[in-house]
């Protein structure tokens, strides 16, 4: 018997085995439905399913997603869900890749999250300047005949991706972090769930294939798959979907990395891990937390022997100083002085006060911002000072002969409107 198109779309697709999962998605609605089948009516069970799946946020903080769903669902009045696709982390490309390749997975996840928490407003945020991403989302929404999802284009600034800053921007503000906690007072003063777009896409698959299926891949403590962006000194940079718990060395092989001197895990918010420790690591929370590291937003960047790590530290420290929203004293002035000191280090200052100042100021600004931006700078610089101690000594002695000084991207943030 031949099936009509509608029947074929309604038939549940068989659960994908192995990987890729998210990246098996298709940009067009017909392809999406052929790959994954329609969304089953599971909104009422979504919280429990997400808890059993053990899904954690893929936007950086790695917080259990079901607890965020519960927090917003438990509040009174109209609620809002925001899909965070801004991806201001300069090394990360996974959210853009996902939105271009499988926008319907993200939009399914947005719908599910909205149903699960009882939200009447759905918003998706994308950073300005990513034309292909914007087009993919708009075309997908048109295909779904869904005119009620708001597409908000945000300025190119890392901090505007922070959840309270995003809420501020959606509400017509400049997009600076505020003191509000979105699950209490978010968009329009309403309880708001802000989830990363990859997190939402996983929800769309958990709804279809169940929490046990989700856990078939990954480790017990860190279940599921994750999108990882590999960059820096590699021959095949790009976005890869891997099982959580994959050895870091396998990820580096996928991207044909040069023999690393150190690996930056978690992007500019993450930590430098020297090669000798990196060899034993797997991409799960337990293995990484022993090194104070985390998968974070899934960035893995490699630095090789030809690159001057001190130059990279200095450039990223300056990027952090520029990224500050200029509201909190420790962030505004602390990051400025840290950038100046790191730059003096790069220039070869033999003054031992430069390194002691960096140590003093990283300790001083830690935990003192209105958002976690300064903590990101501290993790990056502290781990870098440790991983590249020998090279810092070479600089102080005026003996750094490494050729490359421009490995990591440091885009200038858009001015505050």
């Amino acid at each position, binding site marked *: 018997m031949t099936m009509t198109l509608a029947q074929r779309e309604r038939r549940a697709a068989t659960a994908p085995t192995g990987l890729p999962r998210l990246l098996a998605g298709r940009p067009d609605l017909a392809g999406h439905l052929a790959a994954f089948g329609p969304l089953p009516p599971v909104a009422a069970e979504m919280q429990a399913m997400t808890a059993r799946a053990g899904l954690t946020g893929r936007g950086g903080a790695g917080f259990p997603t079901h607890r965020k769903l519960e927090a917003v669902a438990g509040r009174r009045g109209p609620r809002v869900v925001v899909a965070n696709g801004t991806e201001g982390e300069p090394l990360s490309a996974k959210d853009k890749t996902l939105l271009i390749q499988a926008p319907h997975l993200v939009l399914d996840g947005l719908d599910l999250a909205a149903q699960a928490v009882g939200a009447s407003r759905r918003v998706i945020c994308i950073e300005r300047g990513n034309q292909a991403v914007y087009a993919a989302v708009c075309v997908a929404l048109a295909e779904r005949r869904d005119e009620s999802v708001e597409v908000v284009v945000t300025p190119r600034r890392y901090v505007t991706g922070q959840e309270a800053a995003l809420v501020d921007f959606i509400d017509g503000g400049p997009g600076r972090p505020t*003191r509000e906690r979105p699950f209490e007072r978010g968009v329009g003063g309403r309880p708001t769930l802000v989830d990363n777009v990859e997190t939402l896409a996983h929800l769309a698959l958990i709804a279809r294939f169940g929490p046990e299926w989700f856990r078939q891949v990954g480790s017990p403590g860190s279940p599921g798959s994750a999108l990882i962006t590999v960059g820096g000194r590699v021959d095949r940079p790009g976005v890869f979907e891997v099982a959580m718990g994959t050895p870091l060395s396998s990820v580096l092989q996928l991207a044909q990395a040069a023999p690393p001197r150190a690996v930056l895990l978690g992007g500019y918010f993450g930590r430098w891990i020297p090669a000798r420790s990196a060899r034993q690591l797997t991409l799960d929370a337990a293995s990484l937390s022993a090194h104070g590291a985390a998968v974070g937003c899934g960035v893995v960047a490699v630095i090789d022997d030809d690159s001057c790590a001190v130059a990279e530290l200095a450039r990223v420290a300056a990027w952090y100083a520029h990224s500050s929203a200029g509201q*909190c004293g*420790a962030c505004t*002035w*602390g990051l400025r*002085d840290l950038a100046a000191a790191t730059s003096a280090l790069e220039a070869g200052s033999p003054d031992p006060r430069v390194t002691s100042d960096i140590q003093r100021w990283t300790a*001083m600004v830690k935990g*003192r911002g209105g958002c976690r931006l300064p903590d990101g700078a501290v993790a990056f610089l502290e781990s870098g000072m440790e991983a590249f101690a020998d090279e810092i000594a070479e600089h102080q002695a005026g003996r750094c002969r490494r050729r490359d000084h421009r490995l990591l991207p440091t885009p200038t943030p858009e001015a505050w409107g």
Partner: protein
Amino acid sequence: MRAKVVELDPIACDGHGICHELLPERITLDDWGYPIIDRRPLTDDLLAHANRAVANCPVLALRLKTVELVIDERMRRGGRGAA
């Protein structure tokens, strides 16, 4: 057991430093003149000073927060009150 601690909104704070003068036991200043809060519980003798610091902050960046103290059983048995 309940106690009060000082809490700061770093976004609102303008770094006037008045709070440090009024409550140096819990508020020091960093290299840029902004307050660093010591979150240890306020002892009774400090409460009046803490309230004055909160009331005198020109931008209302400070407040006192009530926290539940968790007393470590081992310390209790050892006879040393954790608070």
